[in-house]
């Protein structure tokens, strides 16, 4: 059976590898420097990375409490809330963008409040962060729910009996034991944010994040230029993933 598993597994790896490899093949270093590392592209990379990181951090801060409640506390409508949080996964990206725009644009109720604080949704960095947080939320929350559910509740009871308050128990027992799920959730959220395009085109085309730039160059100049623009992103993503997984294993 081991060989059969290895063979099937290899199939999947190849399936993923081939398209990615084809992106890299045929792009000369000169093209990469010209299109992938020019001012516009570097600025777009910065925006994409900064926004997705911030979105991930926001999801950590809000997602940990939500996931803990959903994992531990039983209440009416719990399944409904879980399903709700998962919706962004299924909603088509363009639709998600339109929905966010309608709900939070700077002329709507909440949007105008935020706008007065300097946080406009359309065509702003904060809009990008909002889009990324929206589409990545399910990934963070679902991962954390799994993590928290996997922590034996008896561990928490014992900690309480030994004198730990609810919060001490959470930070010294529950969270450390769920840390792997936080890592996975964050990685997935960051990745999902980085890959978002459809909703960004609608909500915040500007400031141009890297994917918007790649798509724009694809439409305007064609495949070759788009490939060159996308290459640095691909490499950064690959390196980051490997590095983060390495680091987390050492923990």
């Amino acid at each position, binding site marked *: 059976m081991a060989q059969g598993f290895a063979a099937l597994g290899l199939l999947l790896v190849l399936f993923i590898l081939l398209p990615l490899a084809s992106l890299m093949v045929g792009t000369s270093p000169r093209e990469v420097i010209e299109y992938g590392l020019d001012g516009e592209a570097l600025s777009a990379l910065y925006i994409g990375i900064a926004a997705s990181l911030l979105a991930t951090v926001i999801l950590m801060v809000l997602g940990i409490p939500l996931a803990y409640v959903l994992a531990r506390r039983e209440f009416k409508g719990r399944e409904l809330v879980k399903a709700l949080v998962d919706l962004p996964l299924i909603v088509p990206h363009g639709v998600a963008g339109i929905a966010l725009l309608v709900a939070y644009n700077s002329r709507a109720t909440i949007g105008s409040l935020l706008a007065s604080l300097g946080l406009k949704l359309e065509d702003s960095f904060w809009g990008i962060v909002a889009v990324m947080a929206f589409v990545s939320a399910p990934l963070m929350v679902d991962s954390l729910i799994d993590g928290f559910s996997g922590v*034996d509740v008896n561990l928490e*009871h014992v900690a*309480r*009996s*030994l*004198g*730990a308050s609810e919060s001490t128990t959470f930070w010294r027992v529950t969270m450390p034991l769920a840390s792997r799920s936080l890592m996975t959730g964050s990685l997935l959220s960051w990745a999902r944010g980085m890959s978002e395009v459809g909703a960004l085109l609608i909500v915040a085309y500007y400031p141009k994040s890297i994917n918007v730039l790649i798509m724009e160059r694809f439409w305007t100049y064609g495949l070759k230029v788009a490939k060159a623009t996308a290459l640095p992103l691909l490499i950064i993503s690959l390196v980051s993933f490997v590095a983060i997984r390495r680091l987390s294993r050492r923990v």
Partner: protein
Amino acid sequence: MIEVRGLSVDLGEFRLRDIDLVVEDGEYLVVMGPSGAGKTVLLQTILGIVRPIGGRIVVDDVDVTDFPPERRGLSYVPQNYALFPHMTVFENIAFGLRLRGYDEGEINERVRTFAEIMGIEHLLHRNPMTLSGGEQQRVALARALVVDPRAILLDEPLSALDKSRRIELQSFLRRLHSELGFTAMHVTHDYLEASLLADRIAVMFDGRVLRVASFQELIEDPSDERIVEFMGMDNVLRGRAEKVGNGLSKVRISDLELVTAYEAEGDVVLVVRPEDIYIHPLGKLAPMSARNVFRGIVESVEFRSPVHVVTFRIGEVRLRSVVTRQSLEELGIEPRKEFLLSVKATAVKVISQ
């Protein structure tokens, strides 16, 4: 000391009904009962994990009913020990001490001391998940006791162990308790375990505490059919009783008539311990104090280490007696042979009417 007054809990599936219980200082109280009786719920309510809907919990004269678990001073050893897998054995034991703000030196000393008492000082640096069941148990105990709790609550602490480990740890617990003198509430469904460890036993059924008594008292005077059944007592009979004066009653059970030292009238349930049924060869018996003498035919003989259980038939009624191998041979007990059986009136216990 733990005092539970009128405690009621409603968790839908599990209920506690109006429980009154006292665990004296230094007492080892065993809470015994079948699964579903509510033993774990009782423990968790006393700990503060479950909220009661009525009643009060008082620990060392302080009403802790509204206190969160961390303020009750009660240690907990759950059935699966719940050792913190992300900490070493040392850190596990030190957990409670760190919370109390002891300095490193004191923590070190205390942990090592307890580790030595528990016989696990060579395991302190290990990860708890690599230990055997028995070792984990000891770590859990050390962790619970090192903080000098007002009492320690153990939920089926030995159920997960194999038979020899279990016996080993039962004696260990017994010695530990006599040495350290902590107050303990120990939940189990195994009455033999209870007999070994308990100062007193609280018998629980269906969310209620039926009785609190020593093991001896329970054996000799079960007083409730459910206790009898639970403890696997043999020779439970149903019959019709009639007072005959002199403090005695006669009970008719089908073809058998037994005299009992209990005063009873009407439909009754009786129990006779196998040990209380004596076997004699047919023939004339020397005078003795047994009120009941009757004939019975051997139906079967079973070896249940270390004794032999002999099942007798008296008409439609079956009674079991126990004998040693020696008696078996000496009396020539084998199926189809008839013998005389004697039972004292005081050994015929009426347990419900």
